[in-house]
């Protein structure tokens, strides 16, 4: 049971970060379908940095891992700037741009993997995962990581709810014309929203590949976690406490299925699809009255 708790904690942390990435961008007025792509690029950045240190047999240290996280955050921000420029300045269709970048991201990661490994398209993560390289037992690390992330998420929620910055960010998505009339630049707030979103998505990807045992090898995929995070955002009705509850429910389901289905043969694949089926059933129940920010997806054209 102890490893299930570890798995639940780390999954809550990953889905919480990814859902908040989507939340920040949608709160500021931009539909962000690039969360999954940002996670992929963040995961690749972490893998590239830590692989560079451990390729010659050096043991992974916390310093290497932290550097990997920092680079993942930076790469997440830079990649999301492509979406930001297209959707804010060029008033492009945000859904299509997000999907296009979502197609490019795993390919960039794949090309990068071939580059750094001189020909391989996947890389085993045993030497670069935090849960396998430290003296502490893996599930304890997962619980600590998950707890730290939850505290961080609580801090972000407080920023959105209780600060002037959070109010302006929400206004950029709810009523940008009023925000502009009060003298605040809507473009600036939307860019800041997407910067934070990119940082969180990159960090979520790095945490996933470093601390979740399902990633025994990394091959330019995060198994659609970014899209599940979008579903959790909708189910949580763009409110952080409900998003966390949704993350806990989904993560618990996923962890139990992963933990107990290893002995099943082909039938385990049907069991793996249960979280997606449950999400699909839950979406209609909340979408009916879910109300996102009013001006999300609508480009703001300044005079």
């Amino acid at each position: 049971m102890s490893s299930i708790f570890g798995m639940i904690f780390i999954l809550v942390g990953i889905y919480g970060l990814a859902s908040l990435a989507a939340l920040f961008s949608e709160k500021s007025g931009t539909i962000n379908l690039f969360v999954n792509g940002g996670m992929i690029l963040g995961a690749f950045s972490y893998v590239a940095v830590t692989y560079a240190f451990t390729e010659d047999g050096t043991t992974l240290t916390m310093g290497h891992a932290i550097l990997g996280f920092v680079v993942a955050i930076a790469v997440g921000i830079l990649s999301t700037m492509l979406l930001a420029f297209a959707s804010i300045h060029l008033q492009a269709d945000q859904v299509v741009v997000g999907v296009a970048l979502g197609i490019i991201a795993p390919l960039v990661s794949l090309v990068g993997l071939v580059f750094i490994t001189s020909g391989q398209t996947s890389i085993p993560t045993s030497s670069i995962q935090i849960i396998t390289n430290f003296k502490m037992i893996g599930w304890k690390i997962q619980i600590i990581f998950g707890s730290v992330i939850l505290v961080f998420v609580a801090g972000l929620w407080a920023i959105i709810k209780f600060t002037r910055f959070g109010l302006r960010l929400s206004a950029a998505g709810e009523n940008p014309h009023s925000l502009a009339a009060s003298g605040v630049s809507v473009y600036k707030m939307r860019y800041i929203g997407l910067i934070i979103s990119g940082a969180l998505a990159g960090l979520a990807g790095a945490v996933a590949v470093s601390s979740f045992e399902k990633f025994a090898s990394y091959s330019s995929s995060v198994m659609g976690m970014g899209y599940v995070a979008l579903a959790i955002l909708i189910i949580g009705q763009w409110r952080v406490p409900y998003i966390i509850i949704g993350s806990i429910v989904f993560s618990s389901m996923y962890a139990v299925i992963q933990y107990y289905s290893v002995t099943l043969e082909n039938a385990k694949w049907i069991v793996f699809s249960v979280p997606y089926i449950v999400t699909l059933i839950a979406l209609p129940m909340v979408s009916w009255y879910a109300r996102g920010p009013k001006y999300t997806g609508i480009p703001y054209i300044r005079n």
Partner: protein
Amino acid sequence: MYTKLKPQMPSKHKFMEAIFTPKYNARNMILAILLGFALATITLFIVYGKYAIEIINGLFIGDFLDKPTVGYLISKMTIFAFGALAVGVCLRAGLLNIGVSGQATFAGWLAFTTLKTANDPTKEANILFVGLVMCILGGMIFGMIPGILKSLFKVNTVVSTIMLNWIATYIVMSTRTAKSGAEIMGLGNEEDGLIHIVDSTNIWTMVGIGLGLLAFVVTAMYIIQYKTSFGFKTRISGLSEEAATYSGYKTKTNITLIFMISGALSGLMGYSMFFLSDNAIPAVENNIQEGFTAIAIALVAMSNPIAIVPSAFLFSLLYGPVGGISLGGLDSNVVLIFSGFITYFIAAVGLWMYIRPIEWIRKISGNKHKPHLDSVKFIESKQPLNSKKGGKK
């Protein structure tokens, strides 16, 4: 007649202005393709160095030197064209269907499962006919789900179709029965092995069937979208849902219907792929990539059924074998860089507003004349002084 409207550009500049305004027209699409190709080529050069030249040569020229490869290209074009038609039908209605992969996969799974339970599954004609019917039916059923969720419950179609893609993948993985543990699902079972529908003697028959089917479907879709009231109403609902509702268009019913049609076309894509080409469904924990490439093709063709065919052929070139050059495991994926960049530049078509080389050259060369002043002088010099609607008197 002289009017006080916004000055028109002189005729010699109209072509350039038309290119650099943010419109979805053929010129901008071509520019997006060229820019996407340029960036993708640069990426290939960064990764492969001098071999990039051979790769590109192999992709675009070498494919035509080998007859079986031409057949492979045409079959790939058919697959992409059906997928792009599925996406295009939804795009015209203002919807985005990125569940083409899952719908095609489920359609193929349903067809294979039905045939396995049939009495005599080895007759080729039975396999092809029953496969066609079940693929269309399976695609319609799976495509109907996001349509109902969208029309009745306003569920975001992107999220619902992504979930369904993964569900379809796991359904196939749970029923894979191929011999030797290969990660595919075919018509055979572990004892008998795979039943091959296509072999070296009838590949051109399969290509011919695919082309015939494509020609029929493209013609039908063109007539429906451009010559029927249903197609007109679909387009209106894509431009303005409120206007469509107020004019009596049954939005909810028709969203479901559009997704069913899209699903049926995705089923045809699955039929082309799993019956006319590969004879098996890949049972790996990943969605088939052709569905995502179809999105780029539909955007390039601006959802026009006839334009989709040459666009699909262009993208099929990228999937052709590269003349025996080893890409280190990237054979099928590296070319997706092209489709990804192209899709991005099509979506960011407003980029062209900011690319004004003529003005840049003028600024650099120190030419201070502003274009619009030149145009006003041009028009004033050509207009009569006395006119009924204003003007100088």
